[in-house]
């Protein structure tokens, strides 16, 4: 087995002359479940976009030890136009767009069957012919999760899949990710620090710089020392271990 899937070294990225990431270094191991946390505007999404080749870094390197087409991606839900005339099945099939380019004349059949299988497994068969504009937030996230799995990824990158969803879907989503994590590495960006720490194996704090934390338990002191000021909020009935905290901080969260 390869020792690393991706190696990010000294990566710096700017938007309009404004440094968003500074000298970020991070490795992604096979079958890791890496939670990426950090304040808004801290560079979480930028890190992902640089990783996917969507933004050009000023400096540094990203080295993939797997083919890029084996990376699955679920973008933030507000990136897509919800009134676009497209059905669920077509959205899911678009996950394999790259390989379609050279196979213009090939019949859709294989992709379509694969898409239908993923849709069935996600429990959304009933809506597969619906337009995406008719879906709820949770249904839409399921559809995008299916799309990100179309290329049978070895690394799955998810940018806040827990926004616009209800509590029940949130726990289903994390259970699903846990199951997927048995065959692929997962990189999960979330603002819900409390909940993800229950599921992830390792944590990276992104606030201009990246601090890697090789465990899923992290204290507020550590967060502070990482220059990652986060309010730790937990809610809902989802089972979670609250990030370990000192007594004087315990009003921030509750244990189950």
């Amino acid at each position, binding site marked *: 087995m390869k020792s690393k899937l991706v190696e990010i070294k000294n990566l710096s990225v700017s938007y309009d002359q404004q440094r968003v990431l500074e000298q970020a270094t991070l490795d992604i191991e096979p079958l890791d479940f890496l939670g990426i946390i950090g304040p808004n505007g801290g560079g979480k999404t930028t890190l992902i976009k640089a990783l996917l080749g969507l933004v050009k870094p000023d400096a540094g390197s990203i080295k993939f030890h797997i083919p890029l087409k084996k990376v699955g991606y679920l973008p933030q839900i507000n*990136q897509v136009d919800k009134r676009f005339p497209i059905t669920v099945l077509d959205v899911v099939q678009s996950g394999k767009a790259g390989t379609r380019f050279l196979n213009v004349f090939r019949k859709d059949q294989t992709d379509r069957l694969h898409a239908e299988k993923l849709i069935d497994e996600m429990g959304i068969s009933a809506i597969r012919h619906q337009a995406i504009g008719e879906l709820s937030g949770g249904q839409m996230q399921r559809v995008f999760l299916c799309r990100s799995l179309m290329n049978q990824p070895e690394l799955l990158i998810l940018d806040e899949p827990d926004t616009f969803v209800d509590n029940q879907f949130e726990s289903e989503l994390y259970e699903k990710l846990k199951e997927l994590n048995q065959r692929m590495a997962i990189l999960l960006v979330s603002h819900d620090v409390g909940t993800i720490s229950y599921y992830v194996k390792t944590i990276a704090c992104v606030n201009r710089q990246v601090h890697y934390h090789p465990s899923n338990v992290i204290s507020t002191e550590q967060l502070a020392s990482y220059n990652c000021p986060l309010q730790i909020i937990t809610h809902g009935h989802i089972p979670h271990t609250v990030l370990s905290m000192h007594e004087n901080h315990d009003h921030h969260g509750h244990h189950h």
Partner: protein
Amino acid sequence: MDTIIDLFSYDFFMNAFWASFFAAISCGIVGTYIVSRRIVFVSGGITHASFGGIGIGYFLGWSPLLGAAVFAILSGWGIQLFTQKGKVREDSSIAIWWSLGMAIGIIFIYLSPGYAPNLMSYLFGSVLTVSITELYLMGTLSLVLVLFFTLFYRLVLYVAFDEEFAKTTGLPVNLINYLLISLIALTIVLNIRVVGIILILSLLTLPQATANLFTKDFKKMMVISVLFAFVGSFAGLLFSFYVDIPSGASIIFTLVLVFGLMKLAFYIRQNLLSRD
């Protein structure tokens, strides 16, 4: 008074019929892409920029349509380039090309000796005076579009729906974007003679708005748009002939009427009948 059958024995009417047929195909298909991707005003910019080419065409004594095609394609690329690389906001980029083209057109038409005889037909359309050459061009374009959108249907759909995601799957998104903007430019230019620069946007958006009432599927929307575009332009053509009003305006009026009636029918079905 001539019956509809009699009308088809006139050459000019046959030409106008074929022109509206090809206009329906090209505008129905391309318009669906434009509306779905919300680039109606990019198309507006291209349309008006093409006026610069018409002016230069008049001035040099070349075909105004050739000039318009060059200007349309360049402005399409320009809008995209300014937005992507020049970091100009898209609406500002559109406005720059839109007004630049119009200004060049006005200057060169002013400098051209004599009065520009068909100027009005470029501005407001004149489907009854479409030439055979123009018909062949429109027919070829329609064929190219049908082939392109059939063969590359999924590529177009995926890039239009979520460009950034499409990039991550390895699609040559930029190439597809520039190709499509060129096809939009050619569609606009070759249909200018049907409804004119001022009115062409409606042929690219109204049939689509009507089709969108019936379906939320990109492929079906293209087909239904072509149908409504044809019904609208042919009925408009007949109307303009019998009532003796300008054909371009008549076609647009019919398209709006069809949309209005359909929208009303859907409104009644959804809000009044569902209460039972």
